[in-house]
């Protein structure tokens, strides 16, 4: 399996990353992808800054991808997470998974995102007119991981 993991300040090109997963690769019949962007529902966020733990971040992401690989037959996986200051609507994270059939690609993509949200050491800080605020973790993210513990999945 080919794995690409990157933690970077620079933007990424989701289309180019997806194309790289299936170009000249006849064994691949499905690519599922997820793109996470900076939400600003209330219109109050002027900036979102991502902090991380260099070293552990890459290690945690690699472990999550390896765990996905033991559950599904995957051909290749790309995970890119941005750090530093971002603006509303900017892409933050992408996961793309290539496999022979769609079921494995869909499931592995969701699995990787669920564990990224709860295990990978990133922290968001929002800036509004009141100043900078650290974003609180959500219980629903922990719940999303629990579904993968079911033995029949």
């Amino acid at each position, binding site marked *: 399996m080919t794995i690409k993991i990157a933690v970077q300040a620079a933007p990424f090109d989701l289309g180019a990353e997806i194309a790289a997963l299936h170009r000249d690769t006849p064994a691949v019949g499905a690519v599922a992808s997820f793109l996470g962007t900076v939400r600003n529902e209330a219109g109050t966020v002027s900036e979102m800054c991502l902090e991380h733990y260099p*070293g552990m971040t890459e290690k*945690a992401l690699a472990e999550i991808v390896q765990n996905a690989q033991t559950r599904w037959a995957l051909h290749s996986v790309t995970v890119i997470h941005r750090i530093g200051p971002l603006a509303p609507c900017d892409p933050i*994270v992408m996961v793309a998974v290539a496999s022979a059939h769609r079921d494995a690609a869909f499931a592995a993509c969701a699995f990787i995102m669920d564990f990224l949200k*709860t*295990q990978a*050491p*990133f*922290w968001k800080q929002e800036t509004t007119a009141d100043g900078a605020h*650290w974003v609180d*973790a959500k219980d629903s993210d922990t719940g999303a991981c629990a579904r993968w513990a079911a033995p029949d999945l």
Partner: protein
Amino acid sequence: MKIHILYFARLRETLGTAKETLEIPAPATLALLLDTLRGRGGMWAEALAVGRNFRLARNQDLCPADTVLADGDEVAIFPPVTGG
């Protein structure tokens, strides 16, 4: 033994430090290290109080407080993660 400690995000700001190296007697667990830090009082006792929501990592792996430490270990203390 020497333990290198890293603090991140809100905890780094609250404690006013990103990293330090601490000399503690061996053998020791993460829980004992936390007790030592709480012993400083003030924000240390408050932010790291038992029951507060923070995570621990030893040598870049998440781990529980009863984890045994070794000389030269890198320990990180941080709030629940919020990436993605």
